[in-house]
């Protein structure tokens, strides 16, 4: 595992600020829960970590590596979506 660090992470959709300057450090092996009401930006934060959204401001670090602009396939992360994404192989 690796340490995940968010620095001033910000994501806007038009005028709506979905993630507002989030600073977060998840230590290696730590079990972290993001808790909050619907629409408070939990999913958007996770999507930024997975690389499915590119943040407007701030950086995402895996260990010492800056992965903010790295495409999801090169990040070695997994995400389980709210709705099942099982399809025919």
């Amino acid at each position: 595992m690796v340490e995940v660090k968010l620095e001033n992470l910000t994501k806007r959709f038009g005028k709506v600020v979905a993630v507002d300057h989030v600073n977060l450090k998840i230590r290696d092996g730590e079990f972290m829960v993001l808790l909050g009401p619907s629409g408070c930006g939990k999913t958007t934060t996770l999507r930024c970590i997975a690389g499915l959204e590119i943040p407007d401001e701030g950086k995402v670090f895996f260990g010492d590596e800056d992965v903010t602009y790295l495409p999801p396939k090169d990040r070695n992360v997994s995400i389980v979506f709210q709705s099942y994404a099982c399809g025919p192989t």
Partner: protein
Amino acid sequence: MGVAMTPEQRMALKKLLIYAAAVVVVAWVLTPIALITVSAFAVPDDYYNMDKVIPTRFTTQNVEDLLFVLKGWVSTLNSVLVALITIAISFALGLPAGYAIARYAFPGRDAIKLLIIALRMFPVMTMAVPLAVLYIELGLSDTLLGVALAHTSMALPFVVLITSSIFMSVPVAYEEAGMVFGLSRSEVFFRITLPLALPGLAAAAIFTFVMSWNEGFIASILTLVNRTLPADILVSAMAAPDPYKFAGGFIMVLPAMSFVFIARKYLVTMWGITLR
């Protein structure tokens, strides 16, 4: 009515009415097709015999004459070629557009969608003469590619709308899961989205085929020698005796008929989401 009905009777009556309506609709659609088919294969003597409402003796002579004596097979081949080129070009241009409309929210998306449909409101008749002049200047006149290009401009709006609604029915989460597990953007399209969309896209392709196959007006204006089948029938077979006209009509009807039988279960996906 005043007579009290049991729920069973009411159910039976409802069923009867639905079946009656279905019979009327089917008869409305199939009667002309049945007439064309019967007349196409009737022996000319039987067809012209006033005492016989329905011919009793049948032959394939009419269709054979139309195809081989009147060289109908050349124009049939032309029609198939034009339709295939039309599918190739309109899919090469329409698939990316449909995908973009389905997947990305960009400013003016709805306006672009509306403009694409509005293209179909434009009457082709008004453009016939300028188009012919342009084609002569470009050297496209009387070529199959030229007809295919004209058909592409007609089919493209439908291809864009149909493919966008098909792509919308493929969940975004599938694509994102694919990306997280190591596919690039284009690999996701070719290995996840495209296979899932394939049945619908095949239906869209056949739809394009039938549209090009049926189009006679532009084709008859833009060609002289290399005619497609409807243009050929429109111009030369109309001077022929009735059985040949019906034989031509029968050949024209075949692909559309088989299309509906093959693709009917995909028709809802094709139009379902755009109609919503």
